[in-house]
C-alpha cells in the first residue's frame, strides 16, 4: 500500500513531470496565463492521462509484447490516446454538458501534450504493473496540474510587475519555470525511502 503512495507522491513531487521529467511543457507554457484555464487543463489532463496509462498498459502487455510487436508501441499508443481523447469528449458532451463546458476546449489540446505519450512509455521503462501504471499516470497528471496551477497563480501576479520590456511574456515565464524547477530539486532524494 505504501509503495503505491510513494509512486503517487514520487510522481507528483520528486519526479514532477514538468520540472524534472520535462514533459508537457507546451500546455504548461500555453495555458497558464489564467488560473481558471490552468485548473481546467489540469483536470482534463488528469482524466486522460490516467486512462491512457491504463489502456496503454493493456495494449502493450496483451497485444504487443506477446506478438513481438514492440516497435508498434509509439503508433498504437498515440492512436489510442487520440481516440480516448475524442471519445471522452463525446461521452462527456452527451452525459455532462457542464463538465464539457469546463473541459471541452482543453481536450483536443491534450493530444499534443507529450506527457500523454511520454508517461505511458515511461511506465513501460519502469516496469510498472497495471495498478502502478494507472497510479503513476494519475500522480504524474496531478504533478502536472500542481505545476500548472502554481505557475498560473504566479503568472497572474506577474502581469502587474514592472518586468523589463524584453522579458515580458514568455521570457520571464521561462525564468519563472526555471526557478520553480530549482525549487522542486529540493525534493531530490526523497524517493530513496520507498
Amino acid at each position, binding site marked *: 500500500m505504501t509503495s503505491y503512495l510513494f509512486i503517487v507522491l514520487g510522481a507528483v513531487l520528486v519526479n514532477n513531470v514538468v*520540472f*524534472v*521529467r*520535462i*514533459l*508537457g*511543457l*507546451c500546455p*504548461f*507554457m*500555453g495555458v497558464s496565463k489564467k488560473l481558471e484555464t490552468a485548473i481546467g487543463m489540469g483536470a482534463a489532463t488528469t482524466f486522460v492521462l490516467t486512462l491512457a496509462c491504463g489502456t496503454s498498459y493493456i495494449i502493450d502487455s496483451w497485444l504487443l509484447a506477446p506478438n513481438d510487436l514492440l*516497435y*508498434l*508501441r*509509439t*503508433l498504437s499508443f*498515440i*492512436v489510442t490516446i*487520440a481516440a480516448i481523447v475524442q471519445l471522452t469528449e463525446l461521452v462527456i458532451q452527451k452525459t455532462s454538458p457542464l463538465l464539457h463546458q469546463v473541459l471541452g476546449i482543453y481536450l483536443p489540446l491534450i*493530444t*499534443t*501534450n*507529450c506527457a*500523454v*505519450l*511520454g508517461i505511458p*512509455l*515511461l511506465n513501460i*521503462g519502469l516496469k510498472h504493473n497495471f495498478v502502478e501504471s494507472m497510479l503513476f499516470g494519475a500522480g504524474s497528471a496531478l504533478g502536472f496540474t500542481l505545476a500548472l496551477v502554481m505557475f498560473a497563480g504566479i503568472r497572474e501576479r506577474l502581469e502587474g510587475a514592472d518586468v523589463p*520590456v*524584453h*522579458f*515580458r511574456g*514568455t*521570457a*520571464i*515565464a*521561462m*525564468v519563472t*519555470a*526555471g*526557478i520553480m*524547477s*530549482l525549487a522542486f*530539486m529540493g525534493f531530490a532524494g526523497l524517493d530513496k525511502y520507498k
Partner: protein
Amino acid sequence: MSIYREISHNGLWKQNAILAQLLGLCPLLAVSSTMVNAVSLGLATILVMGLSNFAVSLLRGFIPYEIRIPVFILIIAALVTIVDLLFNAFLHDLYLVLGIFIPLIVTNCIVLARVEAFAAKNSAGLATFDGVMMGVGFVWVIGLLGAIREFIGQGTLLSGIDMIFPGMQAIQVLPESYPGFLIAILPPGAFLVLGLMIAGRNWLEYRANERAKARLLAQQQAAGA
C-alpha cells in the same frame, strides 16, 4: 524564389517553432544539456518533419477532412518509429541518451501543426522544404541552447561527439580548472537559458523595428527635404 525565402524566414525566425510559437519545448529542454544531444535530436526532427510534410502533401488528395488528424498522426508515428529504429541500430549510445524523446517527436506539436497548416495545402516540393526549414529552425535553437548550456555547465563544446563519430574529442573551451556551473546542465538551467534566448530574440526584434522606423523616418525626411 521569394516563396522559398519566405518559407525559410518563417521557419528560421519569424514563425520559429520555439522562439515564436513555443511548441516542441520538451525535447528542446530535456535533451539540450549538451550540444551533441541537442543537434542529434534536432536532426531526427528535421528528418521526421521533412518526410511527414512530404508524405502528407503527396497524399493530401486522399485524406478525408474528418479523419485528417488520425491519418496525420499515423503517418508521423510511422516515420518516427522508423527513425527510432534507425537510431537504435546505428547510433545506439545516442539512442540511449535521447531515450523517450525520439518517440515523443510524434507529439511534438510543430510537426502536426506544420503538417496540417502547410503540407495539407501545398505541393510536395514546397511542403518538404517547409518541413525541413521548420526543422532547421528547431535545430539551430536547440543546438544553440545545447551549446550555451554545455559551455556554461562544463566549459566544453561537443562533448559526447564520440557517440556519433567515434574517436572525435570534445573541445575544452574553458580551462580545466573551470569549476563548471552544474545548474546550467540541470532542468532549471534549461529554462533559464531559454528564457534569456527568448529575451534576446525580443531585443533583436525590437532593435530591428527601431531601425526600420528610423529608416522610414529618414526616408520621409529625405522626401520632405
